[in-house]
């Protein structure tokens, strides 16, 4: 996934804190992004991800901390000198300007000495329209465009200033699922072609895991975990991350002498597991089914439902009902409501009891 990034650091964020009145929006957040990296800030609403993005853009000033881009002190620069392209959640297109005027805006407001000629601007706009596949719509107004088209105009407008970094705030938030998936692939392609270091904010874990080179997970203004999508998915640092990135089954357990005990089942404890009482998390589709006399957690099947290629199996384990998932071929034959089985979590994660 990180193949298209090289190792030079582009963005360094160190110890950023920001309060809004009494509400701490960001608490001592530090992270880095490499040149050309596609970084996702993922978190629930109120986690501070948008505030962090606005700090990078210069639209908010942090109370403490440091932001450097390409070695330059970014916080000392006002918004207009940072040359970051920002795409807002609701696009923020200039409603009284045409598509072409919107895209050209960043070029036409330049100082006279740096302003490209009219012909150059026209060429640039044409090129960008082609890049975002909106040729022929240059004379339309934003209100005459669909959500997906507006999104792409906003992106073209941000790219027009040849930004050092691209900031996207919930870029697909206002679009329906179908358009969202299409644009996601397209955005990834665009990033490969332009190679601009990009930070984007989302609350959709699937989007973050699918698109980003690395994902930073935030909660209550704090950075909880930073890593490649497969790392954070497979090794969530906290129960919150585990829960946030996908379906979770949880059970109490005990770690003693390298062994993990859940109810009446004992297995080898995962590496680096904390000692004593723990919470055990596993994904509902990462389980193996065994006959009642095999090894695993004793469970009673209470329902089976086919869902496309997957099968949902409701089980009662230790008094709680869990919705497990099996992919067609992994389903043991003969599983039906009322059957007693044994269930073995394949990759349990253990966390100390909070």
């Amino acid at each position, binding site marked *: 996934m990180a193949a298209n990034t090289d190792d030079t650091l582009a963005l360094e964020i160190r110890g950023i804190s920001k309060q809004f009145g009494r509400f701490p929006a960001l608490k001592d957040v530090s992270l880095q992004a490499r040149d050309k990296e596609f970084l996702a800030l993922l978190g629930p609403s109120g986690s501070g991800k948008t505030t962090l993005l606005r700090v990078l853009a*210069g639209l908010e000033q942090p109370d403490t901390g440091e932001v450097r881009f390409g070695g330059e002190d970014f916080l000392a620069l006002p*918004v207009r000198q940072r040359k970051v392209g920002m795409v807002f959640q609701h696009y923020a297109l*200039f409603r*009284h300007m045409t598509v072409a005027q919107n895209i050209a805006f*960043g070029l036409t*407001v330049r100082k006279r000495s740096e302003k490209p000629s009219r012909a150059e601007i026209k060429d640039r706009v044409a090129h960008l329209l082609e890049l975002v596949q909106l040729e022929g719509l240059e004379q339309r107004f934003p209100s005459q465009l669909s959500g997906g088209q507006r999104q792409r105009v906003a992106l073209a407008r*941000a790219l027009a*200033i040849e930004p050092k970094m691209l900031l996207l705030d919930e870029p697909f938030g206002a679009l329906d699922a179908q358009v969202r998936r299409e644009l996601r692939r397209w955005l990834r392609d665009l990033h490969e072609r332009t190679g601009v270091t990009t930070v984007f904010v989302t609350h959709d874990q699937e989007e973050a895991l699918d698109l980003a080179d690395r994902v930073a997970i935030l909660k209550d203004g704090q950075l909880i975990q930073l890593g490649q999508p497969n790392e954070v998915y497979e090794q969530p640092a906290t129960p919150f991350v585990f829960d946030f990135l996908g379906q979770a089954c949880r059970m109490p357990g005990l770690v003693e002498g390298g062994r993990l005990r859940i109810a009446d089942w004992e297995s080898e404890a995962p590496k680096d597991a904390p000692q004593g009482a723990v919470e055990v998390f596993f994904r509902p589709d990462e389980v193996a089914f065994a006959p009642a006399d095999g090894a695993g957690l004793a469970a009673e099947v209470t329902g089976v439902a086919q869902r496309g290629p997957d099968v949902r199996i409701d089980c009662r384990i230790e008094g709680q009902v869990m919705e497990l998932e099996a992919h067609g071929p992994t389903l043991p034959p003969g599983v039906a409501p009322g059957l007693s089985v044994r269930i073995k979590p394949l990759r349990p994660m253990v966390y100390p009891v909070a």
Partner: protein
Amino acid sequence: MMIVGSALAMAGLILMPLVVVFHDAFAEGAGRYLQALTEPDAIAAVKLTLLVAAISVPLNAAFGVAAAWAISKFEFRGKSVLLTLIDLPFSISPVVSGLVWVLLFGAQGWLGPWLLEHDAKVIFAVPGLVLATLLVTFPFVARELIPLMQQQGADEEAAALTLGASGLTTFLRVTLPNIKWALLYGVLLCNARAMGEFGAVSVVSGHIRGLTNTLPLHVEVLYNDYDSVGAFAAASILAGLGIITLVLKTLLEWRVSGGLAGGRKH
């Protein structure tokens, strides 16, 4: 029934007085009407009214834009206080709006003696009329702009800044075009009130004919002198102003609501 009732009320309360104004103004013929309008005191009153409006309307337009901008695009302490202050002139009697200036700048007022020493006159002079008008027409532009600008949010401005625009460029090329119709509408209402204000200016004017009488005050003076043709002739100018305002207002409302509908499609 309701429609008939309100139509009758319209006819009785608005059309009838309008008819009466023009009827009485022309009671002694067009010649007398024109003569009443061209006498020096009437011309002075018209000029003074235009002067006061010409000073106070642009000032309040500028203030209104600044206040609406601050309130709708930024978060700061004392925002609700500012909002309340803007509404204050709506909630107090115009006479009080005039009186505060008398208390401040009048001969017996706080700054009266100091003004006297420096040979400057505020009360019973043009500055007093402007101040009183400013205070009374204070809310019109701001009140018109705040809801619109709050609805529009600050994202477009933020986008312009990230694209390298300066604050001034952002205001001129992004903010102003987005609010121009509402701004015109506010200015129109502000102007109508500035020209028609009676209570506040009456307190500070001193009713010196040809010097500190604005049109509404001129009407009162003539009427008290039993010069009914003169009074109604002057009033007909104000009535005409009212009609023009109404027409422009209707046109602008149509533009503004059209703009809002376009905005809602987003």
